[in-house]
């Protein structure tokens, strides 16, 4: 029944005993800590952009439970194919904030060598494939990764994350349809934050829910409260278990709300009412989870404050470290187009070298993603 919103955490943080997922105290605190760190990373990213230190940033305010809770249900060697709006997964999987900010600065230590815009990460060691801007492309790639897992029988699963807007993409249709047929171990995780930039879900699809689209592909679909980290975790855990046991794919919809702008270039006041924003601010997934942790006695108010302060300090330190690193070398521009540098690129590199690097054009920084 896709139409039933699966929920575990009460808005007051109360949880029915039978609903409580089997998570250790340590797990619960790790989840919470990662959510807080993610929030702080995003705040720092937005600040760096406002200060003109980085050209662009894209935060996930309000969506921390949806993506972190979900990714937590996978093993470290399961593969994540995500969009640009799940920064918490990298933090969860052990990537440092400094490494992430190196990407935002596009500096010489950026793993992707300054080639992509901010927040377009690639973390192979953490099992996370390269992020690109075109909406939806990772969905069918996730299907392919899972299909390869099935062929290789390596016991892994793939989770692919995408937005509500992405359900309209060609690659959503292909990814789910192919996987319905192949029965590959793929979990399709739709973070329905109700907006695709300015376009609300009612203009995105007439379907009653995103989860209900699963039937079109012969797979189960579940609508989950995306601001409830425990429900998100538990729904994903079950889907992962099914996939790993050979029972095929699942579509999960995490209903949440994008509490911030689409990106540093966006101004949501142009297209959505302030009241809606306040309504959802009251449902902040971090506060809701904290209410649970306080109620369960896992944390007290001081501990919560300390966790926030520590995360804040972590991000400030990371930003300071990233900020001072040099830009990538000009020569590096020609690497990685091919496995080996072909003659025409060697020639173009030579040409650029001969200019002595003094032919720069001015680029203006602000633009809408």
């Amino acid at each position, binding site marked *: 029944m896709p139409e039933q919103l699966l929920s575990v955490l009460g808005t007051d943080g109360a949880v029915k005993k039978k609903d409580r997922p089997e998570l250790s105290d340590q797990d619960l605190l790790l989840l919470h800590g990662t959510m807080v760190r993610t929030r702080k990373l995003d705040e720092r990213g937005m600040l760096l952009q406002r200060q003109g230190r980085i050209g662009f940033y894209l935060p996930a305010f309000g969506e921390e439970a949806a993506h972190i809770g979900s990714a937590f249900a996978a093993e470290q060697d399961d593969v994540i194919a995500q969009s640009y709006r799940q920064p918490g997964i990298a933090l969860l999987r052990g990537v440092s904030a400094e490494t992430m900010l190196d990407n935002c600065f596009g500096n010489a230590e950026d793993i992707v060598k300054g080639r992509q*815009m901010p927040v377009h990460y690639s973390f192979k060691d953490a099992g996370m494939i390269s992020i690109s801007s075109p909406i939806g492309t990772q969905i069918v790639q996730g299907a392919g990764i899972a299909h390869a897992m099935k062929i290789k029988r390596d016991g892994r699963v793939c989770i692919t994350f995408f937005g509500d807007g*992405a359900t309209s993409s060609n690659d959503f249709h292909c990814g789910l349809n192919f996987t319905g047929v192949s029965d590959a171990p793929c979990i399709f995780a739709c973070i329905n934050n109700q907006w695709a930039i300015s376009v609300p879900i009612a203009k995105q699809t007439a379907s009653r829910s995103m989860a209900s689209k699963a039937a079109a592909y012969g797979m189960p679909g579940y609508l989950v409260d995306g601001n409830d980290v425990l429900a998100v975790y538990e729904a994903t855990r079950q889907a992962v278990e099914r996939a790993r046991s050979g029972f095929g794919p699942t579509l999960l919809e995490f209903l949440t709300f994008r509490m911030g702008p689409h990106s540093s270039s966006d101004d949501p006041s142009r297209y959505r009412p302030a009241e809606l924003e306040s309504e959802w601010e009251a449902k902040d997934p971090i506060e809701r989870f904290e209410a649970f942790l306080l109620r369960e006695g896992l944390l007290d108010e001081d501990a919560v404050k300390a966790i926030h302060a520590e995360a804040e300090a972590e991000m400030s330190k990371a930003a300071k470290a990233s900020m001072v690193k040099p830009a990538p070398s000009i020569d590096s*521009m020609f690497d990685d187009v091919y496995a080996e540098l072909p003659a025409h690129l060697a020639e173009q590199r030579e040409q650029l070298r001969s200019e002595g690097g003094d032919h720069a054009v001015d*680029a203006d920084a602000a*633009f809408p993603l």
Partner: protein
Amino acid sequence: MSEMTLLGAVTTALREEMERDDNVVLLGEDIGVNGGVFRATEGLHAQFGDDRVIDTPLAESGIVGTAVGMALHGLKPVPEIQFSDFIFPAFDQIVSELAKMRYRSGGEFQCPMVIRTPYGGGIRGGHYHSQSPEAYFCHTPGLVVCTPSTPEDTKGLLKSCIRSDDPVLFFEPKRIYRTVKGEVPDDPDFTVPIGKARVARAGSDVTVISWGAMVHTCTDAANLAAEEGIDVEIIDARTLLPLDEETLLESVKKTGKLVVASEATRFCGVASEISAIVAEKAIEYMEAPIVRITGFDTPFPYALEHVYMPSPQRVLQGIKKVATFDF
């Protein structure tokens, strides 16, 4: 005449043509209440309503495919692709359907429409917000491809395109959306003809042909060249397909020297076509190699954008190379 930005010229042309012809409808992502992410459609939803300014689901193939259907049923759609980098999901509808509709139906059907899309680098957009994909469409018979560089041409060409019976890809140089301003005729019937280049600067020593934002880079280069005593003629192609060969050939027959400047990657780009046309039709006039100054044959980089993109100095280097060449 009114002074406006290139972006303002887009909005003005759209408004005027929508007022003139009820069949003109706009569709695309975020073009309604939000006015488009660049604000090209600002105010049009308020003026023309839901039926004529349509926010679509997030699928470019759906936008163009729907527009093809609308055009088949008598509307004149003007779809917006938010960034030209995102036009590729619509490639099949453009190449297989839109471009071939009149031909394959023996002239029974046509799909007049203008696909507007911001293109080009210089806004720190990295791989997917910077590309110049015009060559893909220029290799597709049946399409018209336009690339204005001034507010006046933007307004006049966009209006011609909306009035045309052919499908048009209208590439808007987003880098200069707001930085280039100019006087634009107010006459609602002011248009600029499709398929005609513009001599942006007359000169006698070297011909430089370019389009879009690069025309301004070339102008800077020409100014630098003038300081060194080289008199550059700049041709702004304006329409890439069908290309105005006449203006091009006339100029190179005069100067005997040609630099083609383009932001796009070089291999199989429009710059190569222009070079090939001259090598086929006017080689006997050429007194130097035909030099292409283009983007490098790599994906568009983020941090190194400023060295990736052809600068005035790089264009100047090309100008000097052909100006001083000795067989």
